[in-house]
């Protein structure tokens, strides 16, 4: 009798389990990246917000946009942002969208080599498949150009790329971007931009000797940017003390004007010119609201 009971129990358990399994058993497959239709306009917007165009172009060189940026000089050597045009050899013309997704979100080249963190892929990991498809569509529209900005010149031992695998394990995690339910939509949108694609922390968070961002110094400023520049702390208290409001910061991200009438320098002018000035008013306000830790985009909040 007991045995029958146990057997019944087992059957019930299995049935229950399979019921659950049936309920959650996925049918069909999530769409592959290549099956998604990309919106090139939206992708170009993200490429602006992410600084792709700013960093991978060098207007002073006379080369066309996106054929590769000006060298970024650091203590580890000189990093040259590569050609992102559709040229099959110099650029990304021979890539698949999957290779593009892996490069942008994971920082891994098509040949499997890890990228150097001069490329802020850690901040792009939150981009959705649709975001990637949109960006891919935008990049597909860029005319092919063969010319490049040259090669990286990295000092030993940092020129041994396998060491980057250790670096990745320790530091390749961006700040959080997922929505916080009890905060406003604007605050969450701002967080998605600031902590994600706009990658403010790539400069405004200080780095350690290995170039890893020091999490405890999140947005607390840095005095050792590539080229020796300083950037201020931009935590809510720091910004408020410097006289910023949501309204003035949103406008600052458009015009470059600071509360005292001075204008940005040290590369922030470029960030505005190539990046935030192109964003929607709504997105600039969202960034300002998040940075000042307000839920509203007006100054009533």
């Amino acid at each position, binding site marked *: 009798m007991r045995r029958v009971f146990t057997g019944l129990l087992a059957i019930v358990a299995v049935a229950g389990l399979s019921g659950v399994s049936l309920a959650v058993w996925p049918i069909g497959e999530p769409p592959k990246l290549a099956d998604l239709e990309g919106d090139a*306009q939206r992708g170009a917007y993200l490429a602006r917000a992410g600084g792709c165009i700013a960093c991978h172009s060098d207007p002073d060189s006379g080369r066309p946009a996106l054929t590769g940026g000006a060298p970024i000089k650091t203590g580890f050597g000189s990093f040259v942002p590569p050609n992102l045009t559709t040229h099959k050899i110099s650029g990304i013309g021979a890539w698949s969208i999957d290779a593009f997704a892996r490069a942008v979100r994971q920082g891994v080249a098509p040949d499997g080599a890890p990228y150097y963190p001069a490329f802020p892929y850690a901040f792009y990991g939150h981009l959705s498949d649709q975001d990637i498809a949109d960006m891919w569509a935008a990049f597909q529209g860029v005319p092919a150009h063969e010319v490049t900005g040259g090669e990286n010149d990295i000092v030993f031992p940092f020129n041994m790329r396998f060491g980057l695998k250790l670096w990745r394990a320790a530091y390749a995690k961006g700040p959080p971007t997922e929505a916080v339910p009890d905060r406003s939509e604007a605050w969450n949108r701002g967080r998605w931009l600031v902590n994600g694609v706009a990658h403010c922390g790539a400069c405004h968070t200080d780095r350690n000797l290995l170039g890893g961002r020091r999490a405890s110094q999140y947005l607390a400023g840095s005095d050792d940017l590539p080229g020796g520049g300083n950037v201020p702390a931009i935590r809510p208290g720091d910004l408020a003390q410097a006289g910023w409001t949501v309204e003035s910061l949103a406008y600052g991200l458009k015009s*470059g004007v600071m509360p005292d009438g001075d204008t940005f320098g*040290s590369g922030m002018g470029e960030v505005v010119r190539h990046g935030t000035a192109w964003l929607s008013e709504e997105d600039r306000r969202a960034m300002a609201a998040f940075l000042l830790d307000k839920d509203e985009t007006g100054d009533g909040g």
Partner: protein
Amino acid sequence: MTFKKLVLCGAALAGLSAAAFAHSGATGVVKERMDAMKSMGDAVKRIKPMMSGEAAYDEAAVREAAQAIADEAGTAMTKKFPEGSTDHPSEVLPRTWDEWDRFTGLAQQLEVAANGLAQAAGNGRHGDGHMMDDQSGMMGDHSGMMGGGMMGGQSGMMGGGMMMGNGEFPEGVTASQIGQMPADGAFMMLTQTCSACHDRYRKDDD
């Protein structure tokens, strides 16, 4: 021999007193240009809230501020940067003199933008009467500066707009062209010119 010593001694003394002054705040040409920069910043600060919509638009105030900036731009500015004038607390980067043509070009551009803003003052803000509607779609920001407009032809990915990627105006842009723009667009051309120069030639200490 004695004469040479005397000269050396004098030079050393002069050097010492220069150093002493340097540490007690800006002097000479460094002070002059810091004052000039401050006065331009004050002018920007006076009209910025009108451009962002935080304050009511005042045409005369915009014209006056633009004129004040134009007066300090161009050669009025560059003559305050004699080669090697890097005394403390100056924030100028030595690159300024390596790239003198480019630096003077930006100073000239500031004068063009400021004169343009003075002419555009009567046009008012683009956004006025539109309930914050100075956006049309994702890429356009039709305050006159960014969208296709005057420079035309771009797919969103390839730059364009009224400023070149390096912060310089396209060849041949004149004050009277800028004078046709809404005042807030002209103002942005002006402030982004300031920024382009600060980006490249100023070392920020804070």
